């Protein structure tokens, strides 16, 4: 069964995000730092009258923080709005999801966030659960 996915790029790698998880896509500007917040919380930003928490996807995956702030997808987790940073947004495309098989060796966080993969013109692309990115690395240990 096919459903709609947003094709994006996180940490230089193409990923797809279930469109069910995405409320909208924005260009981030004016992010306020939040001292003492966990590393993957980049800050807070205004989305119209709402304040959203900006999640640095690279940091959430255990990589070095994103060098620049660009686009983000807005998602809602537990009643709060988050802007999950992505590097590039390509398209919304219907795909059929395939489960991750044991043979695919992902490192810990990628595996946690990975929900399967889709195939685009023969190229496999990981399905990323943005809710997992929102929670960051905190619940993995």
């Amino acid at each position, binding site marked *: 069964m096919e459903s709609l996915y947003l094709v994006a790029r996180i940490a230089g790698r193409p990923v797809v995000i279930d469109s069910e998880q995405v409320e909208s896509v924005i260009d981030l500007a*004016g992010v*306020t*730092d*939040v*001292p*003492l*917040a*966990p590393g993957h*919380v980049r800050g*807070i*930003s*205004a989305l*119209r*009258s*709402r*304040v959203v*928490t900006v999640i640095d996807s690279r940091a959430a995956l255990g990589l070095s923080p994103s060098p620049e702030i660009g686009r983000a997808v807005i998602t809602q987790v*537990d009643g*709060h709005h*988050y802007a999950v940073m992505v590097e590039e947004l390509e398209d919304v495309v219907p795909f059929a999801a395939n489960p991750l098989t044991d043979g695919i060796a992902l490192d810990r966080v990628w595996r946690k966030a990975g929900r399967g993969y889709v195939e685009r013109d023969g190229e496999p692309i990981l399905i990323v659960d943005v809710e997992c990115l*929102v*929670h*960051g690395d*905190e619940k993995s240990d």
Partner: protein
Amino acid sequence: MDDLLQDFIAETRETLETLSGEIVAWEAAPGDRARLDAIFRFVHTVKGSCGFLDLPRLQRLSHAAEDVLAQVRDGHRTPDQQLVNAVLGIVDRIAEIVEAIDAGTALDHSGEDLLIAALEDGSAEVHHAAPVQVRPASRSVRLSVDLLDRMMGGMSDMVLARNELARRLRDSDCDPAIEAALERMSATVADMRDAVTLTRMQKLDALFSPLPRVVRDTAASLGKAVSLSIDGADVELDREMIEAMRDPLVHIIRNSIDHGIEFPADRRKAGKPENGRLTVAARQSGNQIVMEIIDDGRGIDVERVIRKLAENGSRSEAELRKLPDQAKLALIFEPGLSTKDAATEVSGRGVGMDVVRASVDQIGGRIELDNSPGKGLRITIHLPLTLSIISAVTLGVGNQSFALPRQAVEEIVSAGAQNIRVDQLGSASIATVRGRKLPLVRLCDVLRIESSGHETAGMLVIVGMGTGSYALAVDTVFDTEELVIKPAVPQIMASGVYGGQTLPDSGQPMLLLDGAGIAARANVRFGINGAFTRSEEEAEVEEDLGMPALMFLDLDGSRRSIPLSVVDRIEKARAEAVAMSAGRLRIAIDGSMITVAVTGDLPPRGSIALLRLNCGDGEIAYAVREAFDIVHVRDEMTPGEQGPVAGVMLVEGEQIEMIDPNWLFEQFGPNEAAHDASPICLLAGADDGWMRNFVKPLLESAGYRAVFKLEAGQAPAVVLAREGETPDAAGTAPLVHLSDRRGGGADRAGIFRYDRAALLGAVAERLRTI
């Protein structure tokens, strides 16, 4: 009271709607305890509300139903079909009466006795028809809070759009006409926002204002004396929460008076003042609203609560005794508990407390009990600040801005100012602010961000937390703003230093700091012992603050004081408006003449302050240069001589004279003044018995003031003298000569002295010509 009545009607209606399902279900399964509790709570709430809305019919019905339901709850009666029907009859009747009250129509009493009688065991069944609901158009609308939230959200969007527009217009040179239009829009948007904000926010006053009446009525019906003090009525809270807190608060207060505060005789025996004291206070504390209800009654008798609960049979006594102390106290929230042996009109059977806890839980609040057996009970309710608008101080550290609740800020001083010093004490920093030593916390260190300025260039924000205070060093303090605070995400709140996030008009989101969290993070802790001694000290100070007195700068340049209780208000006035008339300084205020008392000389012109003093049956004004402070006078006063100054006392090391209001009233009071205002007739020739015995009473009965000798400062309005005499004291006052002969006297102006009418006529005529 109309508002309350409307609230009661709307609320009862709503409960009835939700209850209708429960009733039908109860009818089907009369043994269902949850349904029974729901119906019981409904009639209990109606009973409670009727108590202070003075609706005796509803009260009688609901009380009767409550009695029977209580018997069922206690297992003394089984809910048979007849009982269910009778209760339903009462509930329907309550609905009818509520509709009748709303419509303002009369509803006859017929059948109410029957309905109540039907509740009796073994009485005949009554058949009732469902009431016909005829609802008139209502003047008020109940809106869902979701809709209000949407309005609020839309409003914030509008403000941000306005801000963006303004920013863009500033960047491009634009037509002044467009700017003017933007200004107009800004003003409208601001008004709108205030209005929309108001739809959600309400001062706690709305919650507290009915309390004095509730306390009075409750205390009176129990034969107790209770004095209530309310504090923090201007703290704002989400309207939804106020609504949710209304009933619980009344329940708590009724319970406190009924179960907590003892009868006057018992209080005397216990060595307490006869008047029970009940304090309801609210304050904002960090990201919470804290409401406290404190009484000085007997506290909770935990033993008795346990015995009662064990009797109810829900849990064994041994099991209950094993509970930790706090859990034992919390047993008062168990449904169906009463520590009173007899039910009363007032708080019934302790049913209130389970309802209270349910309501507070529902809005995400928390109740704490602080029980001192024999001394009193403090019930603390913590309510979340969600969506509360708070007044916050915005401050800057490095290149970041933060908000701090205004309520937590005691004062703000410049770190480089005189009287301020910062020292290093081992690893800790200590700020000394005018001799007061405070732990110093550098916000930049706590938040691990880089400070932009030199330390002495910064500001110290003195943060008070109830248990202690500390100085928070920041780079700059910007402003005070009204901010809508919303909770931040858990990942951010986990750091413990934030109270929430906000979106100020700038459009740049900001974090609200939590003063207590920052102190904890900086390892500044205030011991619980310190907190206790401090609060006790404060309590003592409150006990004996002394007499409040108003300090002012008198006309003669001295600093004097006057008891505050006699000062009605202080008004600005122009010195030239005070005029000497009929022997007194007077000023016309709001169409009436008020006597002005002074010490020293009035300046010829300029601004003065008038202390309007009230002595019960009238007022006088005391003119001063300015009033500047209110002090509490505790020391004994050293009495002075008879006069305007009652005595001298020490106020902060300075000798201050205290004005004697009694003397002022005696001298210038309204009775005297009224008498004074009547014109003075100087009777020359005091030795004349006829003048004294005949003319004086005659003049006085006509409303004049007859004197034989002028006092200092008095001027005669008219002088009466024997023909041929021209008394020295007369001055410029007109003279009435009294002649021994009719139509006589050399100047023919003399009045025949036995002609009463002519004499009074002449005096009146002379006065008219002045």
